[in-house]
């Protein structure tokens, strides 16, 4: 056995190690068994699953949203890959994906020059250029 001072110094490593692993494990067990929050990517996969079928043939579509959060854009891009999402709607896209999060039940104000061709619910809509 080690002398007391040596053992004391070892506990400076052992205690944080035990604490870290136990805290992490408790956190994940609580999350999995009690809260069971659905992962945000999984939520997006579900929300956009129907829309996906409508844009399968496209190589790129436009993107519009009522939130300025860039994270939502990346999530939609990840879900719709390999279709390229284009945030810049100055270059007119035939189809535009709408991701409305603030109010997903009220009627949407479509983009100028676009018309809603499909409302998939939960804030997901598909718009198309009016002269199409």
């Amino acid at each position, binding site marked *: 056995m*080690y*002398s007391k*001072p*040596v053992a*004391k*110094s*070892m506990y*400076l*490593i*052992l205690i*944080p*190690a*035990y*604490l*870290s*692993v*136990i*805290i*992490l*494990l408790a956190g*994940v*067990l609580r*999350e*999995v068994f009690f809260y069971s929050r659905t*992962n945000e*990517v*999984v939520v997006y996969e579900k929300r956009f699953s129907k829309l996906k079928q409508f844009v399968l043939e496209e*190589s*790129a579509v436009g993107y519009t949203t009522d939130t300025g959060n860039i*994270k939502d854009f*990346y*999530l939609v*891009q*990840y879900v719709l*890959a*390999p279709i*390229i999402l*284009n*945030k810049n709607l100055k270059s007119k896209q035939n189809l535009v994906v709408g991701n409305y999060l603030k109010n997903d039940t009220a009627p949407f104000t479509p983009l100028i020059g676009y018309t809603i061709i499909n409302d998939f619910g939960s804030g997901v809509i598909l718009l198309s250029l009016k002269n199409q």
Partner: protein
Amino acid sequence: MISFLTVISSLIIGTAIVLIIFPQGCQKGNGWILPISLGCGLGQGVTSLMAFIWMVIAGQLNHNYFILESCFALIAGILALYRLRSTTDIKLNTINDASNIDVQPVLRNSFVLLLLLTLLWFVLRSLYQYPHGKWDAWAIWNLRPRVMFRFGAQWLNAFSESGGWSHLDYPLLLPLTIYRSWVMLGYETVVIPCIVAGLYLFSTIFLIYKVVSILRNTNQGYLAALTMLATIWFLKHSTSQFADVPFAYFICSAIVLFVLKEHYTQNSRGLILLAGLFTGCALWTKNEGWLLFIVTMLYFILPFIMMTKRDHLKVAIAFGTGVFPFLCITLFFKIKFAPQNDVINTNTLYDMWQSISNISSYLEIGKAFLKEIVTFSYGILFFLGAYFWLSKADNGFNSELNIKPPLMMLLLMLSGYFFVYVITPHDLQWHIDSSLNRLLLQLWPSTVFIFFLNILYPEQKGKIENE
């Protein structure tokens, strides 16, 4: 379970390369932990490189590629076993005199228990909480293989300029490792990125444990590994599925090999060749790999080249041989596929000069570095500081060999990171907030390794106290 099979051939290839290149006779005494923990990452580097070359030449990954890869794994495995059988065990020139010291059950049991609990935590968090990883994973590292896989034969479209917001210039080790496994399986699954992330996490822990055990003693190895398990930020980040943990592993492996070289006095060029391979893997993993490459060249290679002795030139050639294939392919990828980098290429020389001459930004960056270092992983450095105060550095230790070179390498890396913030074209605060903690994380395993390499091990301390 079948997903695990996709990483077997890369594991065999990596481990075999390590065993073949490792200095003659030194493979046996160190057991399997060291070659496997090194081979895990090296195999992924080599197979992702092979897959990329195949895709460029043949158009896409197909059955022929996997037959070739399996044959390569088989031949490499046989050669490694043959080399292992035909050599006799050579004792490593270790730093300690503690070869007959008893392993402390409290350390061994704690390590095994915490490792198992960490494995359970990793599986739950990866598969149930973050199956797709976190932001950068689904914006970059997992997005790239997903786009390539869904494009099929038109995988080149994944690098079209219209997707330029997704950092298309980032190297491909991680995306291609995932893509290769998906093609082998025939379908996309979140299990593969989780397995890859897990392999890097546990390889890093085992690598540090084993090398510190070899160079100091087993108890010190356990303490080093337990410190890694105490680093919440490192553990958590491994499940984010970013490239920072793999990159940290490659830096640590390169440094470990440079340190090991000093202790294998005969035929040590193989270790430098391996260090070159790992530096190459770092280049092929993240753009920061260029910094590691430059630092390695500056610190280890230039003095060797400047000296005219034949041995030094041979060392430089060995390192160059290891890094060369990765360097060529990364350059080819950068020139042929990748768009401009957002930090380097959007700056004009005038912009850079303006940034360099702005003194206030140095202060701001310095403060941010200090704050991040102090608060890193809930203040783990305070525990290490207290441990150092109680245990003390090993004065009988050759600092010229074991402290100065790797520490200098880390400090040069840190200075490089500092300089990137100085010249950043982005908003400085945003750039610091979004990346500094990850940059420090990249250097953390190497820091832990160097710390435990140079500190008194428990038995030494007890002996000094008794005297």
